[in-house]
């Protein structure tokens, strides 16, 4: 594929608001996970990665119909790191119909519906009058919200393939740009805490009672997080700074195995990584760091680790940053692409946090401490529930 430029990007997660806070936390190997006290969820012994200040950040009056936690988190993200202005400039440069909006989410504004069900009319069972389905609950609402917030008129869509959603948007946007439908795209993802996810993963017995420990021999489940991650993707400018970050390749595959557990040998994962290498025209030896999916469930890390070892041996430093951010589900692909971009720009490899004893049965080079090594090309994995896989390769422009 033709390389594309991540011309602007920003993230909000439990590590903080914006790139500076995110980078500082990664540098300090801090985790943003804390015991779960979200909303009315007081009966789950688990840790979560909650973004600070979402409840205190209402939407502007002109966008009030979109009011829900997911769109609030989106709006908070859009205000950071000059992203707002960058999109405005892109719309002025290319035209409002030439900027696409392709975002990932798994649960959109479902929290709004969960809360509305508690307020059903006792006599009729009707939902309250103030509940608006289209702009909150519907899976598309976050892309519609962003398109409306910027007065864009181009193609838009939400990709919802669970935990690979906001990685797959890069592949879809690259195709739209290659096809000439658009000149730039807002990609990334927004997923926010809700009861469906917390009680749902609890029902699968996949929640850890402690901050999650990716690739630890004693890992025992994941920690749910939330995030907004936005990237402006466009064709590379004629001259780029050496530390400009490019999307070099994307690879997609399916497990065709099971709804909620990965292929045991990580076959789908391996196919996605191979497809990304092929799209980028690269060999395994060209990759300097892998940001793993690394959810800290026993089965994910074993399957992914097996796939990574098969393709890369133990030569490539790897880590999962979910010990720091939690698993941000539909936003994870976008958030981890941004973490990968920071690693490329700042010249360091983020070590995984919370992992005390790396699983000796997974023969990969798992980092538990940051390394001052400047990667040139990074691979980022995102694998979803239902077996939808996506790997991205990012690289420095130099």
């Amino acid at each position: 594929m033709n390389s594309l430029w991540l011309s602007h990007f920003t993230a909000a997660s439990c590590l903080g608001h914006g790139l500076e806070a995110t980078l500082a936390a990664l540098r300090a190997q801090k985790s943003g996970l804390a015991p779960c006290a979200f909303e009315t969820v007081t009966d789950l012994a688990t840790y979560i990665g909650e973004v600070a200040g979402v409840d205190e950040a209402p939407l502007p009056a002109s966008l009030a119909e979109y009011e829900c936690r997911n769109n609030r988190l989106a709006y908070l993200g859009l205000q950071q790191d000059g992203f707002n202005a960058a999109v405005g400039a892109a719309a002025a440069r290319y035209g409002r119909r030439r900027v696409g909006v392709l975002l990932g989410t798994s649960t959109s504004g479902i929290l709004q519906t969960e809360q509305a069900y508690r307020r059903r009319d006792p006599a009729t069972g009707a939902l309250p009058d103030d509940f608006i389905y289209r702009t909150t609950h519907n899976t598309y609402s976050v892309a519609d919200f962003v398109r409306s917030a910027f007065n864009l008129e181009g193609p838009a869509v939400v990709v919802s393939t669970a935990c690979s959603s906001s990685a797959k948007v890069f592949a879809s946007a690259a195709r739209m740009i290659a096809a000439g439908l658009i000149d730039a795209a807002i990609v990334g993802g927004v997923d926010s805490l809700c009861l469906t996810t917390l009680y749902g993963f609890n029902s699968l017995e996949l929640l850890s009672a402690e901050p999650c420990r990716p690739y630890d021999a004693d890992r025992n489940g994941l920690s749910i997080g939330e995030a907004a991650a936005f990237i402006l993707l466009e064709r590379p400018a004629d001259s780029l700074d050496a530390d400009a970050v490019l999307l070099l390749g994307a690879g997609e595959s399916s497990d065709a195995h099971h709804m909620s557990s990965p292929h045991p040998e990580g076959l789908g994962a391996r196919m996605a990584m191979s497809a990304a290498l092929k799209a980028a025209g690269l060999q395994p030896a060209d990759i300097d760091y892998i940001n793993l999916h690394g959810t800290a469930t026993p089965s994910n890390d074993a399957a992914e680790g097996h796939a990574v070892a098969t393709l890369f041996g133990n030569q490539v430093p790897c880590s999962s940053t979910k010990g720091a951010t939690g698993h941000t589900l539909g936003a994870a692909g976008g958030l981890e692409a941004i973490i990968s971009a920071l690693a490329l720009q700042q010249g360091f490899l983020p070590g995984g946090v919370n992992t005390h004893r790396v699983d000796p049965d997974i023969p990969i080079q798992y980092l538990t401490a940051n390394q001052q090594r400047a990667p040139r090309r990074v691979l980022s994995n995102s694998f979803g529930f239902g077996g939808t896989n996506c790997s991205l390769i990012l690289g420095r422009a130099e």
Partner: protein
Amino acid sequence: MKLAAYLDGIGLIGPGLDNWPAARPILAGAAPYESRPLTVAAPQSLPPAERRRTGVAIKIALAVGQEAVAAGQLDARQLAAVFSSSGADNDNCDAICKVLASDDRHISPTRFHNSVHNAPAGYWGIASGAMTPATVLCAHDGSFGAGLLEALTQVAVEGWGTLLVTYDMPYPEPLHAKRPLPAAFGIALALMPERSAQSLARIEVSLADAAPDALAEPELEALRRAIPCARGLPLLQALARGSNAQVVLDYLAPLSLAVEIEACR
């Protein structure tokens, strides 16, 4: 780049529209449309444990997908897949919200894994064995158009054969009052980069400003307006007539999609 593909197979299910061969004369205006409740069987291609867990949305998606693949004499394992729906398993969504609003918030693992928007794609992979890329989209009422655009970019840019599966099902109350979808519906198109003996037509899609085409038959037009994936019906009507045509489909205002149809036989 031209966003073009050869259409090798069609799958269709809707009220009074049992499958593509049965619906074709109705859409072409050669047979009357008679609305009746739709029934769809659980897909036999799924293992029994998975088959028991499927709701209406998954059954519709798999049925129309399989119809399109069979009609095109294609191997599903060789096709990428694009699933697009305004909702997902909407009965399941209601059931989860009810449990979460009750005193006992324990939801079942099956309820949870069927709650993801990509559940039909997951079951499709299990049923077909396809390890090819599958994506799952939502664009509210523009979901048919969004799915068609994604599928066409896959064919045109990647050179893949891509199966587009669009589907919707009603919500039960109380969500039905907020999002009134009157019936379940599904359309699948097998879109290929090269012409084959099975090719029905070549279609070329572009972004447009024109108002979307309406259907002359009032009940079918009511379905088109009320069900997001049924907004693909003007395309199917033109294909049913079998001649060259241009149709305009709903997408995301102010954009619509213009589709040039060149019949292959």
